């Protein structure tokens, strides 16, 4: 574990770095590069401020968050279930393998027009798009995790009289969960891609809409402001995943605190 003083110093240095970047940006804008292209922190701050004052920023954030989080949750849940089922039932996995690969190689975003045909341009479409993107990432990771479960541990469990259900809950799931979380973590930005792209294609609300709208009006500060909000949303989702990870895998933090011995 890092000492408290050390981590304080690291955080101070990070703040200093951030301030330096913002200052350079502010001063270089309009001098080195035209402000039209890069805007500048003070203008972005003003844009954010006016959105906040207007009161509809939170409405847009709420829409995008709803789409991204619901889609993430749906896609991840289905991904875990399908991953575990196919990971355990080899015949089924062998049967479906080529179909899964075919679907996997398809860029999921390209399905957006199809989803619009099926379910319209409402929130449902963005949730479906997000869920589809997240599903594959989580499914493939879970599947790999379940396939990598130690056969020895399984045998030991069967020797103790374990049923298939015992093996699943006591060995397969805890062992695969590291993989599941790896899948979840890489899925976070993709969840936002799904929601934002959905909004970019067809919407009159959400951060994607805000982004497209600002860009349409050549409002660079607005574009940057929208990007920053999106980044913060992604940060939040990431933090949630991280928190769940620490709660669900206490042995991992025990392992990371352990001094290296071999």
């Amino acid at each position, binding site marked *: 574990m890092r000492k408290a003083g050390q981590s304080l110093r690291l955080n101070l240095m990070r703040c200093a770095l951030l301030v330096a970047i913002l200052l350079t940006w502010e001063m270089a804008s309009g001098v080195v590069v035209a402000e039209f292209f890069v805007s500048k922190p003070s203008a972005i701050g003003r844009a954010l401020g006016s959105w906040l004052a207007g009161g509809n920023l939170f409405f847009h954030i709420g829409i995008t968050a709803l789409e991204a989080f619901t889609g993430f949750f749906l896609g991840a849940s289905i991904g875990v279930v399908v991953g575990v089922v196919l990971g355990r039932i080899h015949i089924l996995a062998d049967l479906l393998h080529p179909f899964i690969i075919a679907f996997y190689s398809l860029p999921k975003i390209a399905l957006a027009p199809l989803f619009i045909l099926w379910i319209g341009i409402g929130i449902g479409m963005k949730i479906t798009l997000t869920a589809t993107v997240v599903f594959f990432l989580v499914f493939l990771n879970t599947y790999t995790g379940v396939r990598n479960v*130690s056969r*020895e*541990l399984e*045998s*030991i*469990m*069967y*020797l*103790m*009289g*374990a*049923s298939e259900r*015992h093996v699943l809950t*006591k*060995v397969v799931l*805890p*062992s695969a*969960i590291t993989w599941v979380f790896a899948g979840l973590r890489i899925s976070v930005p993709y969840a936002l891609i799904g929601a934002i792209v959905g909004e970019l294609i067809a919407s009159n609300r959400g951060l994607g809409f805000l982004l497209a709208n600002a860009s349409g009006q050549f409002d660079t500060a607005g574009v940057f402001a929208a990007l920053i909000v999106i980044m913060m949303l992604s940060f939040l989702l990431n933090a949630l995943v991280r928190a769940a990870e620490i709660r669900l*895998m206490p*042995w991992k933090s*025990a*392992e990371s605190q*352990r001094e290296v011995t071999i």
Partner: protein
Amino acid sequence: MSMAGPLIAFRKAGKTFHVDGRTVEAVRDIDLDVARGEFVALVGPSGCGKSTLLNMVAGLFQPSAGSITYAGTEVVRVNLKTGYMTQNDHLLPWRDVVGNIQVPLEIQGMPATQMRKRVASLIELVGLTGFEKSYPAQLSGGMRKRTALARLLAYDPETLLLDEPFAALDAQLRLNMQIELLDLSRRLNKSVLFVTHDLDEAAALCDRCVVFSPRPGTIRKIITSPLPRDRNLIRLRHDPAYQALAAELWDLITPTLALTRGEAG
């Protein structure tokens, strides 16, 4: 169940592994009867197939030649009458010591309060008090072995298959565990197949000791212990009968030592 016949019977049992087109004959022509309540030690050079034999008694795989029967029926699937403490501890890394020991109890569906008591007494028995909440990665090799032993004792199987269970323990702890194991097996009339590289340990504990040849492992000799069934392990060092048995084992093993050393070098 027929009490008359042997509990475990090896009949011309052999096992050949096929890996990448290479065949390795681990054991060959094993004929051995183990009676109910008997403590049988298996000794022999590394790689002679001792673990392989235990695996087959546990029913993890079948012999490629001959047969193995348990209580009169051929072992063709996982043998639930046996508890197996493997050479590697195979603890669940995501469970702490308590969690690992109670796995078999959870499987049996034991009520929580009873389970806590049983686990607590086992932890005391194997001397892990104070490490209840430690994960396997935070334990020493010997502590992991003791956790595995406690887990095995927790579910109280009819027959114990022990693969070098005390190899990583200090002398004192080892003697302690030996006493507990012997006492337990006698009291509950459990059969034990006990693999060890420590010939003194084999001599101290066994009713019979099976000495194997180098791979492919065959039985070179089966020695019946002259020691009484209830023996005092602490006093044993000075018992001439014990000393003679240990010496006999050493004399049997040393000639093959030259062979294995040559193979290694």
